[in-house]
């Protein structure tokens, strides 16, 4: 899942970027409003974490521009402004959630996950495909009764495939959602990771779950 952080206070921006990357997200981040808008317009982020008082361009302005241009990314406003009017203005301009500073990092994480599930119409935090079980909140994966250990990147890939269960997803799509802007990897790396994931998840006596659709991409599910 790919996130964008637009926050001008350096310690917060840095710690959030670090924390969210460690949580398995592909994170782009910037401290400038205009740059933030440029990022938001150029990429399909799953969630954008947006501060309101920004140098260069106001957070609400970014939100308005994004929405008028038809960008569908979920937006979580992160600000020190806490009046009802501020919240209402933000939500009315198309924000999906609002978190007042200072906040608990765990809460931010939970809200991001909730937004992601909402985005992929996945209300249940536990996704089951046959005997494969993915717990989105603890990021743990089981096949039958056996827990499968995945690297953060492998988990991010599986999570994205699971969120779009049964849909064919292109390599570019996958690449865009699990790699951040600064990553040098190309979309070929997706095939490599699909290979890693298959090795860990697929078992010889069980149904194959990750399928390759030639020329189109991959799909997770039972065929």
């Amino acid at each position, binding site marked *: 899942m790919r996130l964008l952080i637009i926050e001008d206070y350096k310690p917060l921006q840095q710690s959030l970027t670090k*924390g969210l990357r460690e949580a398995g997200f592909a994170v782009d981040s910037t401290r400038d409003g205009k740059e933030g808008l440029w990022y938001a317009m150029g990429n399909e982020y799953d969630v954008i974490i947006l501060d309101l008082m920004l140098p260069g361009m106001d957070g609400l302005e970014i939100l308005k521009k994004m929405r008028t241009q038809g960008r569908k990314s979920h937006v979580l406003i992160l600000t020190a402004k806490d009046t009802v009017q501020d919240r209402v203005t933000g939500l009315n301009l198309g924000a999906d959630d609002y978190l007042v500073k200072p906040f608990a990092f765990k809460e931010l994480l939970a809200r991001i996950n909730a937004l992601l599930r909402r985005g992929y119409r996945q209300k249940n935090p536990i996704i089951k495909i046959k005997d494969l079980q993915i717990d989105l909140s603890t990021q743990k994966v089981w096949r039958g009764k056996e827990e499968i250990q995945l690297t953060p990147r492998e988990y991010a890939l599986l999570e994205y495939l699971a969120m779009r269960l049964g849909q064919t997803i292109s390599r570019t799509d996958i690449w865009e959602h699990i790699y951040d802007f600064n990553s040098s990897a190309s979309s070929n790396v997706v095939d490599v990771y699909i290979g890693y994931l298959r090795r860990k998840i697929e078992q010889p006596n069980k149904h194959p779950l990750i399928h390759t659709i030639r020329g189109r991409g991959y799909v997770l599910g039972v065929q």
Partner: protein
Amino acid sequence: MICSLRTRLLTGIITGMILLLTIFSLLIYVMIRGALVKQFDKSLASVTQILAASVELDVNEVEMEFEVQQMPEFLNEEHPTHFQLWRADGAVIARSPLLDSDNLLRIEGSLNELVHTTSQDKNGRPQRIVGLTFMPRLANSERKDKGTDNQDSRQLMNQQALTLAVARDAGDLYGQLGFLRWLLLNASTAVIALSFILAAVIVKKGLRPLNSIAAEIATIKEDSLTTRITTEDVPTEVVQIKNRLNELLSRLEASFNRERQFNADIAHELRTPLSGLRSTIEVTLTRARDNDEYKRVLFDCEAIVENMQTMVGNLLMLARLDAKQISFQTEQIRLAELVNSCWQQFSDKAIERQITFDNSIEAEITCESDRQNLSIILSNILANAVEYADKGGQIRTTACNKDGSVELAVSNTGCQLTADQVAQVFDSFWRGDLSRSDTGTHCGLGLALVERLIRALGGNAFAELQSGGIFVIRLTFPEN
């Protein structure tokens, strides 16, 4: 003494009414009394003259015509008129029939000038008396014509000068005057009582606009300062009060809004570093890290805390300045030295940013001021200059004496502000960082504090933009 406007107006009106009515009543009474007494005395005088004319001197006998003595007024027992006639030696010659043996007051007056007075008769009733000393007419006119011996005649005449007193009962007159007094007193009292009621109504009605304004003011609470006094139909005098009150409300509202904005800004400015602190700590705690990383995080947190401490210190200083709780201790200060000592704390950062510092203040320029507060001012200005000067730029300080005051200027290159923005640099929480990212590091209180502090020290601060992006802060303050 403070009393209500209503009481004051009523007291004034009623006192005025009492005074006017008393004066008018007295005037009317005196005039009517004078006229009545004059009329009474006139009729008494004519009786006296008739009586005097009826007295005849016959040889040595003085006679009064009997008919005259029997005139009806001398016999009227209800309102009696009395007379009494004396010789010059005091012997009584005649007295009116009703007088019996009583004596009237003997008053001497002349024909031209009758003497009137008021006394009481034996029953205690008031009476007016008139006195007249005259020469009786001689019964034999021939003797008078012959004119024997002039001296004898004169002697005789002297002996024959008579005194006549006529007294008339004045009960009716004084009764009428008494009634007049009663009438005037009661009428005045009634008028005063009625005017009190009338004045009370008028005053109440007159003061109604004030009451309605007071009622409106009573509804204004500190959280409803947007309301204005809207009472219509107010008299011109009160319109002024109403307008002034509305202006006062506007000023109060603006000041409350500023205060609210200031508090909101404080909350915002404190929340931002707090969120940074919390997030940094929480993210670090999500998993085990190596020692170097913990150390790095602690240094980051320390920097955040230091910034917060500076900000809280500035806020406290501003609050104390507002409450006038800062006392100053003046001493002779060498400005060049003070600037150099303030610069110490920024020199590292300046080297890092390749900024050159040029202190051009001449060593002999001094001023008398508070050292501690002046160094806070200078440190804030220098901190600002180091922060906003361009990399490789220059900071320069100059000073000069100018008719009794010192002018100190700190300039830095690389200013990216517009002239409009420069005009705002002394506002609290204003930051010229629309193109710069420094949230949490600088909260826009430094220059606000500079301006407030220099004013408390009796000086002034100005900011200006010179060509070539040179930003100058100029301080003027008294030499002594």
